[in-house]
């Protein structure tokens, strides 16, 4: 049976950067729970599972927006630490030699060059206009809206989607 947390019945506090201490209104307390988004791509604010150190599920937060403001902040901080999917702002260079692509992009976390082995499997356009990219090391990147890319970047990416 999944225990759903609606919102105000819990108080969340950050512990050690990526963990949460959870206090239920009933008096129950859990230390060092790890929040995981059940839908990290399609909806990060909803259905966040809290796992203990053994990976066992303690509860699921239905909607982060319904939490008390401090708890919501704590969860946001935690998730920001845990989830890293840099948003690509523009493509600086795409070079290819013998089927190995090196893409250099500017992201919200700085400039990065990564390797793409097969852009057919590495680049996934979604119907909401987002593009997900997975590099040769399984790191993930996101283009929030392909239409917002500058003309040069769009031209570079268009044949690959």
């Amino acid at each position, binding site marked *: 049976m999944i225990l759903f947390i609606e919102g105000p019945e819990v108080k969340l506090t950050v512990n*050690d*950067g*990526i963990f949460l201490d959870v206090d239920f209104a009933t008096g129950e307390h859990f230390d060092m729970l790890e929040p995981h988004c059940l839908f*990290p791509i399609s909806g990060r604010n909803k259905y966040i599972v809290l796992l203990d150190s053994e*990976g066992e599920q303690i509860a699921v937060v239905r909607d982060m927006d319904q939490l008390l403001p401090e708890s919501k902040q704590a969860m946001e901080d935690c998730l*920001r*630490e*845990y*989830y*890293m*999917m*840099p948003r690509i702002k523009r493509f600086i260079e795409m070079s290819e*030699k*013998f*089927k*190995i692509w090196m893409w250099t992009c500017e*992201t919200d*976390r*700085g*400039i*990065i060059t990564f*390797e793409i*082995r*097969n852009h*057919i*499997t590495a680049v996934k356009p979604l119907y909401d206009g987002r593009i997900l990219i997975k590099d040769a*090391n*399984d*790191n*993930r990147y996101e283009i929030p809206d392909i239409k917002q890319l500058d003309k040069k970047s769009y031209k570079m990416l*268009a*044949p*690959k*989607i």
Partner: protein
Amino acid sequence: MYTLNKIPDWLTNPRKCLTIAIHLPIMRNKSIKNIYSVVLIFAGVPQTEGVIVMNTLFNRPVPDSLKKAFNAEFSEQEPLFCVVGDLNLQAKYGDSLLAFTKTHIIAFDQTHEKSPVCVAIADIEEAKVKRMYGNAMFRVKCKDGKRMSLQRFSYAAANVADAAAEYVNSVNAEGWSEDLVEVVKSVYHKQRSFCPKCGRKLPSPDADCINCSSKGHILSKLSKYIAGEKKGLIVCLLLSIFTTAMALVPPYITSIMVDDVLPNKDAQGLINVILILVICYVLQYAVTGFRSYLLRVTGSRIVISLKKDIYEKAQYLPMSFYDKTSTGSVINRINSDTSTLQQFILKITQEAVVQFFMLFGILAIMLAMNWKLTLISLIPVPLVALTGRFFGKKLGPKYMRIWRRSSAISTILADTIPGIRVVKAFTNEKAAVHKFEAYCDDWLSEDKVVAKVSGFFPAFMTFLVTCGSLIIWFLGGQSIISGEEGFSIGILVSFISYASMFYNPVNFFANLSDSYQNTLASVEKIMDILDAEPEHDFAKGEYPDRIEGKIEFKNVNFSFDRSKKVLSNINLTIEPGDIVGIVGTTGSGKSTLINLLMRYYDEYDGEILIDGKNIKDIDMAYYRSQIGFVQQDPMMFRDTVFNNIAYGSPNVRVEQVLHAADIANAHGFICKLPDGYDTMLGERGVGLSGGERQRVSIARAILKNPGILFFDEATAAVDSETENLIQTAIERLIRGRTTIMIAHRLSTLRKANKIVVVDKGEIIECGPPEELLAMKGKYYKLVQIQSMGEKLLAAKAEENFE
């Protein structure tokens, strides 16, 4: 031992130094056993640039700033290895460094409150790599309870960081030793696989460098297929040139007819001219017919040999390829992309040459007839060529997008049509249709864009060509009206004919870019398979005398992708003849153990040995032939029952198959089938029940007579009665063979003399079943739960019966 008096410049260059340290063992793995021997060669050489450069292992070159910072602050410390990170602790891209010595960890990160941070290994209770989403952190828990995040990095450095954490924990547990460094080095060796020639990263350690071994251009890749059909293509080409020459004759004859025969009312001349034309046309069309036949056969041979090669390559691709590429997409490449390529090859080798001759032949004739008019009629040519180039560039990326969408449609078909039973069972027909429609619409909208370009493009080109004809009519007509000497109506008529013929090759070459772009998209997909790294058979031809069946896992770690470890630190020894049951919850890593043993995945850390020999050092085909694998949902092929049992055992005698089926408790039900062993099975074994399919697959394994047997949930999907039949068959089969059985139903492990309990990718219990029961650990709990469940079921059954 070598003595170096002077340090060569490549020794002081970190990138080159790294390459050598990594690749010497690969290049000469017979003579140099490991990287450490290379490090020994360097020992004693005066250090000119600080300790990090000379002796230290690192996963990627250390940035100069960090190198200098380290050497300035820790000149006395000699790090054994470093993890060079690509993120700072605030998850922004930037360089960071974690250096490991015998006694300390030194962390450099600009965002540390106090950088660098130096922690004594002795003060650490546990070091751990915390894998998160798209990044990971090296964290330590100190003995005073303090927790610290020392470094953050993307998955690119996660594996070496894992080894580093293991090193720290092992140093604390057993004290420092060379062996611990050796373990780390082997991980670095695997991680940092660069080509010794060009320095590029290899697809996997020891793989051939695509960069250096690449055959280069598409045409050179395709030449192999063209070369095989050289004779046929040359004959076709000669015939084409002949027909082209024939095609040039009629306009000339027409001019004679218009200028000489008709005005002079020469009846005999007319007959002669018509006869010549008849002979020309007969020759032209007869030869064209023969050439078309020959060309089709030759083209089909090319495409078939290409299909065979791709299919063959697809058989040897590693499972990791299929994890990332849908089977629908592979099928699409074998079927339609090869046909696109065939058309293009024929276009290039035949039509292009013919059109080339046509172009220059017509040009020569036209120049001979009237050079001025010829030059004027050439005015639209540059326009035609430029337009072709412009549209070609526009079309290329669009064809690639169309390909992706048509491949997505194939993938849906490959998913839903074979799974039609599931679709019907869940009454999901409408949703399936909607999804298919959405994909088709997506394809259609892309196709519309291409249709717009490719529709207007030829029309515009034809318009330009017509303009050329109009110019000739206008200027030629004026010459005739003004009575220009040497220019007749006959010449004008034949000139118009030649001019319209002239634009055919011009049009052809202008449109060639269109089909070239279309083909490029297909070629890229085909080359993706042909160029993909096949499963590595490092030891082809290495056959051990016989396989006794001793299996050892030594420090095996594995992850499908770097985001999550599936197996951690697996150490296990299985003696010959042992019957080992592997139990654990779903997703604990049981099947992955078997997948590694089957060599479906080779990219793991650590070693798996059979009879003391690394499985990677045994010929892969031989190795797999020594293993019998019975899966939960055995695959049946669209063939007879007999051939399904004899699958993988060619030249087997009929009685051997009957005997195997009998041992597998399959003979009984096969006898009752109307067509017996000749019963044709549908896709995925349709026509047989789950238990029957399972027994056929056991018969298949019996026939193979393997030394080692794996069962992956072989009785999970059958009823108790069938389970008994299968169990008896299994017991007959496993006698005297090393057997590994994965089972949820613990009752199926009654013959096992060893139980391995896997949980979250780790072995948590291992030993004889009685010992594990006495320990009252996880296995005991599983047995308790199952026996309770069985008792409940029995009680319920009894109740219902009463």
